């Protein structure tokens, strides 16, 4: 990894006996757009400051283009790496152009005035962020979002191969957020190394080629978005349940927070679904805090997608395939261990008839009733109808609300239903 443009080895930063960044190793290559994510106080901003050479590490070192950043002449360093701060305050009435031209500081000699080229560059960057009309306005009079765009343009005016952006889109609307990150992707493609800290995980997944998840000053996870953004990892680091699913429009992962009720029940529930019949119940039981499993599900079924994106354990077979006896044996431990198995209301055909056999193995089975009438289900074979009738005898047939109230009763102290 010695060829990496930006490299941190054993990087540590301690202030007032608190370790903010803790012996952290990281290497960022040119062409990468790395998103640094993590809870508040995880050390994201401090990491960026250390990488930019703005703080002197307590231990470890940062190598910029192979050289130790602390020993580098400061203007030389500023020609290699720029840092976009979150501090957007300015008390004096500098114009936007004057602010942008400050980005040329490391490129100019002490008595050298900014030339036409510098101004041209500043204008070009300003037009990239769509603020050409603001060139002569006072920076301090702009809105928060506009100021953030100007500071981003200033980082571009500085013209460095490394860019460190500290929450560059925190004040931006979705249009300008897209503009900043699209430009950032472009910069990475040009061969620059970009590291941005950000809070919005879906945005991070959409634009970054790699994510670094920080927790208490260390890297909890580092990899492609799909390697890092997993419900179980996010639950551990952020302490909140999430659903991670690919966006239908862009294909990138979206992270949705799925809150849980307080005082959750720990009842183990297995859901047998298919064709989306378990979606509603999955949501509600998940919220109640039931320990859920699901299956046997067919690939690409909407039940299966939901279970997977919530990190619910489930057994999956290939789409449109027939569930075999062997697969039923394999899934048997789910229904045998579950306090409760719920047979949802799905059409029964050749492929999923095995799920009815699985239901018959359940320790305790509840059949979901979808309406006032008993079992208005579709059966594509007589065998299915027969198996279903067997399943119903000797088990409770409850509707959605009845199941929930049973579980709530269980939570509030009485025994498992």
């Amino acid at each position, binding site marked *: 990894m010695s060829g990496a443009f930006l490299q941190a080895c054993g990087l540590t930063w301690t202030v007032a006996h608190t370790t903010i960044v803790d012996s952290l190793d990281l290497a960022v290559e040119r062409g990468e757009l790395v998103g640094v994510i993590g809870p508040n106080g995880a050390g994201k901003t401090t990491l960026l400051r250390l990488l930019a050479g703005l703080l002197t590490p307590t231990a470890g070192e940062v190598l910029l283009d192979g050289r130790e950043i602390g020993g580098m002449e400061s203007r030389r360093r500023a020609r290699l790496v720029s840092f976009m701060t979150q501090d957007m305050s300015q*008390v004096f009435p500098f114009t936007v152009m004057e602010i942008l031209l*400050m980005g040329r500081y490391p490129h100019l000699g002490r008595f050298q005035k900014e030339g*036409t080229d510098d101004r041209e560059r500043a204008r070009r960057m300003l037009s990239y962020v769509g603020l050409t009309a603001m060139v002569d306005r006072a920076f301090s009079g702009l809105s928060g979002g506009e100021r953030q765009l100007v500071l981003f343009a200033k980082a571009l005016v500085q013209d460095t191969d490394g860019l460190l952006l500290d929450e560059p889109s925190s004040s931006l609307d979705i249009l300008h957020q897209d503009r900043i990150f699209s430009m950032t992707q472009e910069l990475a493609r040009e061969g620059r190394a970009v590291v941005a800290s950000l809070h919005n995980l879906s945005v991070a997944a959409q634009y970054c080629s790699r994510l670094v998840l920080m927790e208490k000053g260390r890297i909890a996870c580092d990899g492609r978005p799909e390697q890092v953004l997993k419900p179980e990892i996010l639950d551990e680091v952020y302490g909140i349940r999430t659903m991670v699913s690919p966006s239908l429009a862009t294909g990138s992962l979206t992270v949705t927070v799925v809150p849980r009720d307080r005082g959750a029940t720990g009842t183990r529930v297995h859901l047998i679904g298919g064709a989306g019949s378990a979606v509603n119940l999955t949501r509600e039981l998940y919220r109640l805090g039931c320990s859920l499993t699901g299956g046997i599900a067919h690939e690409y079924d909407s039940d299966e997608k939901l279970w997977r994106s919530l990190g619910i354990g489930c057994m999956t077979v290939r789409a449109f395939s027939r569930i075999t006896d062997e697969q039923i044996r394999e899934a048997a431990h789910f229904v045998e261990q579950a306090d409760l198995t719920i047979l949802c209301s799905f059409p029964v055909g050749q492929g999923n008839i095995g799920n009815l056999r699985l239901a018959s193995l359940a320790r305790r089975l509840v059949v979901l009733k979808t309406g006032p009438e008993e079992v208005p289900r579709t059966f594509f074979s007589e065998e299915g109808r027969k198996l279903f009738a067997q399943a119903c005898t000797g088990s409770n047939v409850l509707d959605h609300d009845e199941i929930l109230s049973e579980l709530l009763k269980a939570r509030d102290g009485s025994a498992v239903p």
Partner: protein
Amino acid sequence: MTRRVPHHDATVNKRHALAFLVLSLLLAAAVLLGVGIGAVPVPPASLIRFLVVKLGLSSLPLPDERDITILLLLRFPRVVAAMLVGSSLATCGVVMQGLFRNPMASPEILGLSAGGSLGAVVAITAGFASGSLLAIPAFTIAGAMLSAACIYMLSSSRGTTSLLYIVIAGMAISSLFSGLTSALLLFSREYQVSQFIFWTMGGLDGRSWQHILYSAPVLVPGMIVLSFFARELNLFTLGEEEALSLGMRVETTKRVLLVIAAVVTGVAIAVSGPIGFVGLLIPHLLRFLVGPDHRALLPASALGGALFLVLCDLLGRALLPPFEIRVGIITAILGSPYLLSLIVRIQRRSVVGAR
């Protein structure tokens, strides 16, 4: 390369040139007035004749002996002292405001002036002042440095970027040193009312060429060196972190600027005592005129500070002849309302205490 220069920059340059021209002309006029007006009026004709002959432009006979004495020994040194002190304090005001990105900073508010006064009074009380002419400036420099060191240490502790913090810290230092100054003067054997007033309020009366002789060789180069740091001051207004990331050596620059500003303030105070409000007021007025870019603001404030103090001194001499109102009183009367309006305006923009 003959690419078109954007319209905007040409306008700015033209406006700056005009501002500097107007300031210079006003300063020249103020100097002439300052030399001509006083308890004993010197007719403009003999003043002009004196100047023309002295500059070797004509071989007319020199004017009246008495007028020459007044001009050479009283008026000129006084006006030159006003110019030097005015431009020094205004320049240091610009530096302080930029350095601490704080519109309420100035050598006076941050305690540099009070430190300088204390130094002078220590020198007087300890008896050094009678030994050497340079004792007082040496001690005023030391006093201003002490204040600057306090401010530096206070501003370098983390998480202290609020606008009010540094101002309140400066005021505390200022009060402490002013109090010590008063106490020393009251208890010293050489206690004289005029000295008490001079070292608490400042004044330009009785300033001679001696004062110019030791101060100008420090003040003029000091201001020139400070103006070399105009771009660094621009970056400081973005915040120290931003300045650092743009490749400025922030701590070194900060120390160099504070040391030079303390030396310049100290020497200016040795000449005039602690004259208030110049360092606070002038940078703001000139920012309206030439904008916040320190490359224009520093020289413009130097001119403006000189002009302001010459005029204030003139006003003090012309208002109630034959009595003189001290220049520090005039600047305070003109400056205090402005300070109040500044505070109100800043509060309205609710930037006080904000990052």
